[in-house]
């Protein structure tokens, strides 16, 4: 009886694995097509005119910062150096308890000014607004702590332009990030309400971005390299395909462009979720599809910047645990969209895809692991068969990862050849070296979701060389 049950469990888990990987293979083909289209489109874009024309739509860049003293200066420098005709940088210090504000004051020669702003969104109290003596397009808002969504809403109150770009304080951007992000918007601002783009990862983004394009290094530490691969898979194998199929459900917090009137109409970023980015994307889809409005949300393959990745297992688990929690919260909150034809591809494919591959995945992965080990221990499965299964899963992941590396390199040619070779060799070992950590983090996240935990659990920033 136990053997029967265990057998069925093993078959179910492997069936799930096979099915999800088949879906990923289909998505890879769609993503490859989308990547090709966007690459050709980008190659024929007139960036020079876009960068100098007064008809290019201005953008307010909003950065929410909480205890970011080590990371924030290179980030703001990269934002001020963006090659864009007209943009403002709004930094919201969300009640930091470290020296974030002092670093900003010293570096950018900030002085307090009384600025009367619109209060479109209710936020925690704003203590002061600072302007920079050296950078007229930099505004720093110092407010009481209210979480990232609250800080972004405070930034929206100050924003002057029609499009806003929410960014993270630990991300250093390429000078052409905004141009690349806005290149599709300028052609059709009436329909394109949201854009996100590909980001990579490093322990010290400032240092990584200092290397010239084409010779940018990928950190040698396996923990960072595997996170890099994770990002590549997420952007190139998934989000590009979702974008093509009309259900781009995650505009990442580190680089999210939105039309401001849409955010105002929807009530801004929500404070009731652990994290704001996925929920907002779901909300925009839900509203526009429910009302039958014409709109598009895109994910672009252009590499726009490098974000900081955790340098220890503990920090990584804390980060991924939070991501899992916000996915669970969002997918559950928008459960009315599941399999609902009213929400078109979002309801019929996107939301169920999230449910199956993200929400249920930790439970199935754990069950698979336990049942397979039990099957081997009980003598139902030969160890050699177990190893073949593991190898099949590992190389299936590795092939999908190699696809993502190929699509990224075709698009941007950012990294050194030897680093690409190293990533390719690391890919098959992902299953044993990296995946268990992620499964553990996702299980923790799911457990905390079930307990109703909504704390941020921010991980401590990596130690970096002091900014020049």
């Amino acid at each position, binding site marked *: 009886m136990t053997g029967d049950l265990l057998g069925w469990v093993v078959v179910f888990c492997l069936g799930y694995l096979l099915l999800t990987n088949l879906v990923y293979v289909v998505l890879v083909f769609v993503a490859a097509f989308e990547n090709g289209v966007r690459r050709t489109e980008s190659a024929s874009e007139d960036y020079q005119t876009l960068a100098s024309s007064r008809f290019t739509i201005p953008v307010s860049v909003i950065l929410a910062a909480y205890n970011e003293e080590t990371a924030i200066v290179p980030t703001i420098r990269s934002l001020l150096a963006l090659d864009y005709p007209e943009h403002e940088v709004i930094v919201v210090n969300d009640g930091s308890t470290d020296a974030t504000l002092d670093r900003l004051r010293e570096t950018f020669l900030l002085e307090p000014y009384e600025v009367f702003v619109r209060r479109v969104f209710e936020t925690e109290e704003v203590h002061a607004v600072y302007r920079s003596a050296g950078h007229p397009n930099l505004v720093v808002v110092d407010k009481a702590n209210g979480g990232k969504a609250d800080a972004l809403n405070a930034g929206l109150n100050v924003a002057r332009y029609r499009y806003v770009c929410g960014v993270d304080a630990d991300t250093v951007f390429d000078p052409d990030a905004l141009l690349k992000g806005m290149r599709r918007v300028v052609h059709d601002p009436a329909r394109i309400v949201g854009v996100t783009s590909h980001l990579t990862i490093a322990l010290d983004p400032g240092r990584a971005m200092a290397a010239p394009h084409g010779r940018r290094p990928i950190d040698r530490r396996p923990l960072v390299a595997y996170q890099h691969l994770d990002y590549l898979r997420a952007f190139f194998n998934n989000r590009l395909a979702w974008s093509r199929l009309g259900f781009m459900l995650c505009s990442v917090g580190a680089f999210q462009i939105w039309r401001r009137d849409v955010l105002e109409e929807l009530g801004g970023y929500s404070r009731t979720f652990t994290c704001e980015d996925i929920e907002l994307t779901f909300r925009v889809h839900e509203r526009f599809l429910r009302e039958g409005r014409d709109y598009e949300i895109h994910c672009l393959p252009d590499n726009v910047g490098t974000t900081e990745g955790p340098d220890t297992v503990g920090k990584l688990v804390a980060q991924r645990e939070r991501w899992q929690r916000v996915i669970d919260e969002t997918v559950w909150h928008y459960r009315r969209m599941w399999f609902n034809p009213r929400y078109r591809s979002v309801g019929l494919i996107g939301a169920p895809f999230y449910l199956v591959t993200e929400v249920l995945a930790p439970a199935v992965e754990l069950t698979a692991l336990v049942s397979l080990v039990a099957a081997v221990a009980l003598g139902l499965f030969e160890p050699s068969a177990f190893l073949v299964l593991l190898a099949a899963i590992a190389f299936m992941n590795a092939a999908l990862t190699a696809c993502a590396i190929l699509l990224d390199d075709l698009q941007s040619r950012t990294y050194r050849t030897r680093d*690409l070779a190293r990533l390719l060799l690391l890919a098959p070992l992902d299953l044993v070296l990296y995946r268990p950590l992620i499964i553990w983090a996702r299980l923790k996240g799911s457990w905390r979701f079930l307990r109703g935990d909504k704390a941020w659990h921010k991980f401590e920033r990596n130690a970096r060389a002091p900014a020049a």
Partner: protein
Amino acid sequence: MPVRAWRFKSSHPHRRRSCTAGTSPGRITRSRESGGSAGDDDGDVYGLVVRVAVVVLALSLTAWVALSVAVLVGRVRYDLSRRESPSRALGEREARRLVRRASRRARTDRGTWLRISALRRLARARHPAAPRLLRTALGDPDPRISAAAVRGLGDLGDEWAIDLLLDALREERAPRSRIAAQLERLAPLPRAGLLPLLRDKDPAVRFWGATLLAPYRELGDASLVLLTEDSDPNVRAAAVETLGDRSGDAAAAATLALLHDPAWFVRVHAARSAGRLLGAEAGPSIVRLLADVRWWVRTAAKDALRGLGPEAVSALLPMLTDTDAFARNGAAEVLQDIGFVDHLALERPDSPLLERIYAAGGERMRVAAEVRTGRRKRERKARAA
């Protein structure tokens, strides 16, 4: 790899049952070595699992190797050749291929972008076939193709290309903002073709005509003044924005008149233009907009007054006691931004005027000013020492 090598263990006697007794995944089939047939293996679900795993392993291993080779070879080839400059001279064979591609109507998305790419390459290389192909592409029903033709025409910048761009602007063959960006990029070449746009029956064309006249300060003043009375508010807004960089009584009168326009965005543009065109003379008129019902008009008025600098002070001071709270705090904010508050706080800290400004701007304005001036005082002391 023979499947039988991956059979399941059957060490327990109760599991030694033939698959014919059932195909439950938990049941163990007899191995071929112990007398089972091939058919027995086929019916075993575990056996199926392993066979699938072996197939998946073979396929994915092959795919991983092939993709890895593709990444590395592709990268090495790219590094060796480097990306070719799109403006380099085209070889005859390549040009023929591009012309073929640019002439073909694409049926797929990818085909469309390949056609766009070919058009761009041919335009940048100034290939003799480019004018014909761009003309055709400009009339294409696919907006992406026509937008690419617009970019190509901008790259060429010849007289006929400008005429085509102006026609495209009239007929909206691509997003007008993108056509306008190319026409502005080609300034001053399109100057003669812009004036007729101001008389077009389509208000959107008149709007772009007025907008594109901005760099030509000697051109079309009278027409722009006429357009400030246009029935379309967008046209009025564009006309007054362009007039902001002109001079003359007619332009000044028209701009001041639009400060009272019923459309709020016209008032926004009028406020900015009045500041640039009339300077301090426009101050008293602009300050009234600090009490406008629209937030963006008040913001534009503040921007315009900041632009006037110290010359705005005399117009701003009466607003400090206005009945409208927005007017009061707006005036105080501008006085702060142009440095007047700091000047008073440093030179005449006991001035009643400073108190009036603080009363209008609120306590936080005082605190901010004290922080700023405290720093300056310390700097002064340090310099003196």
